[in-house]
């Protein structure tokens, strides 16, 4: 299968203090890395899940791929072209092919625009003046399973699930190849969550879409993603086929995340919490392996030497000196 998106050694850094203030405060390195050494490939027509706690850099990575956040170093290739450094019409063409579904559908929709105006806004932005906006609105509403009379409604008249459908319609408007969905089901009830994910799966079958899904909901990832990556402090700590990772998590952090999922069975209560504490500040990255401060398996080497990504099992890459699955052990 062809590779639609190829990301290599991507790094995104943010400045925390201006040059003068940093000098005055005596801060030598006024930067923090939100995304570090990220490499992965996304095959056309598949779904890739990005999982991690808040602050792990998953949303920043999604934004960087679309060029919404500048990258420090690394390369992104999309469908054979390099979108970084593009500007003007070339950048606009890239953004037609890669769309974003933002977190929090109600907040990301302008309260003063009708549904029709919202879902046809991409045509206006991209200057597609020949389109019949009424017809496009009807087509898009039909695609996401909303009745045509919703065109005249305002966001406050929509339920959470309906607003999410409008978000999907907006992302689909320009017929993109890639959709980056940031927390597509956060805040939805379970029954509605299923509806939105089924809609996205149907659209993928019908339109051949490729998805990059950013979420912290592992139960959802297990069902809808072909491949996944677990992020911790900006790095991929584990990456590979979803089924393999769920069956045999290799990184202690992956294992801890899976164990932290509550299980709806009163007979399977956990006696203890595996992952204690919280993610350290990006401004004070731990030495060696960044996870060693919370890792139940950490040994001395982990605090001094940074593990490089290794392919432990074909297709499953992880950064750990002492992984849980080690064919050699």
């Amino acid at each position, binding site marked *: 299968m062809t590779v639609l998106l190829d990301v290599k050694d991507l790094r995104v850094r943010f400045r925390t203090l201006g040059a003068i203030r940093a000098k005055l405060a005596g801060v030598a390195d006024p930067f923090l890395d939100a995304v570090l050494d990220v490499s992965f490939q996304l095959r056309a027509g598949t779904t890739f899940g990005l999982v991690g*706690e*808040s602050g792990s850099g998953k949303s920043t990575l999604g934004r960087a791929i679309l060029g919404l956040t500048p990258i420090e170093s690394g390369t992104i290739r999309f469908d054979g072209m390099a979108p970084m450094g593009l500007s003007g019409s070339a950048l606009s063409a890239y953004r037609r092919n890669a769309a974003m579904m933002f977190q929090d559908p109600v907040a990301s929709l302008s309260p003063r625009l009708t549904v029709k105006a919202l879902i046809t806004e991409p045509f206006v932005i991209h200057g597609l003046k020949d389109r019949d906006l009424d017809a496009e609105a009807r087509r898009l509403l039909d695609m996401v399973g909303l009745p045509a009379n919703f065109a005249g409604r305002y966001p406050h008249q929509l339920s*959470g699930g309906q607003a999410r459908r409008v978000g999907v319609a907006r992302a689909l408007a320009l017929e993109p190849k890639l959709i980056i969905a940031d927390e597509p089901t956060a805040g939805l*009830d*379970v*029954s*509605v*969550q*299923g*509806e939105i*994910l*089924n809609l996205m*799966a149907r659209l993928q079958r019908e339109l051949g879409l490729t998805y990059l899904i950013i979420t*912290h*909901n*592992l*139960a*959802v990832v*297990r*069902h*809808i993603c072909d491949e996944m990556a677990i992020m911790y402090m900006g790095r991929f700590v584990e990456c590979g086929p979803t*089924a393999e990772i769920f069956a045999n998590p290799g990184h202690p952090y992956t294992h*801890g*995340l899976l*164990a*932290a*999922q*509550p*299980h*709806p*069975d*009163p*007979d*399977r*209560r*956990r006696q*203890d*919490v*595996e*992952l*204690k504490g*919280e993610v350290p500040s990006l401004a004070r990255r731990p030495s060696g392996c960044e996870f060693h401060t919370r890792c139940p398996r950490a040994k001395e080497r982990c605090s001094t030497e940074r593990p490089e990504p290794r392919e432990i099992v074909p297709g499953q890459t992880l950064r750990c000196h002492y992984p849980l699955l080690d064919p050699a052990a």
Partner: protein
Amino acid sequence: MAAVHPVIAPEARADAVLDVRDLSIDFATPRGPVHALREVNLTVPRGSVVGVVGESGSGKTTLISAAMRLLPDNAELRGGAVLFEGEDVLRMSPQALRNLRGQRISMVFQDPMTALNPVLSIGQQMVDIQYRDRGLGRAAKKRKAAELLRRVGIPDPMQRLGNYPHEFSGGMRQRIAIAMALLGNPELLIADEPTTALDVTMEAQIIHLLRELQQDYQSSILFISHNLGLIAELCDYVVILYAGTVVEQGTVRDVFHRPQHPYTEALLVCDPALLQDVTRELPTIPGDVPDLVNLPRGCIFAERCPRVFERCRAEDPATRWVSAGHAARCHLASPLERS
């Protein structure tokens, strides 16, 4: 054996901290009254954790607002009572209510970012909240605050009392909110989706903390959530709320292992964490929640129920016992054979 009163267990009701009886509440709107809660019965036995599950719009918030009598002005009590330690909250004097709120009943809110005052140090807030305790000096109140912070897992509590809310992470702020709720030694703690804003690893730690505190203090907790996994993890009893009605209640084991209401069944089926086999086509509950202004005749769930039959559209089912302490509001519910 259809019960007149749906009760968690008759003996438990006798020693209940909170006992909601046939509570019906309307909200006046320009479209007409919204029947937000209808004949809701719920009991929190002393020293137990009761979970309330319901999707958005099911009346969870109205229910807890009624328990503390924090209802908005357009709320109208249509009937029933909220008995707290035998006294009806809905008919209490303003003086009694002042003693109730934040002292005898306290609450942990969903969003730890907005529950704390951003311009006061947490030490100041934790001292202020002890205003009722006239006998205690400021230093003693500070010590008490620090002691509770230590108990909920905040390192160096004495130093951290001087910090402001923005200097803590989300998980830490929720721990502080829990500590503040415990300051008055409440008889009942209401937790309204306390982990929704947190990551799973932090959520697991908060749930673990609540369980420890419950065991240490033998406190009674009313835990509101839409996450079935958390209910299973923490609660002794569970109440399933749908469109303002209790459709099923019982011990967590009974309800999760032998659900008797089709809505409970559907909820459990829809939870992706419970699906054994990987599937792209996730189960859903077709249809929408009914309009609470124009209630349908018959069973409230009939429109969406996979097992609907004629009687359901004509007659609202009574709440029936299926086993001791396990009741469901469905025409198809019948006493279970205990294996």
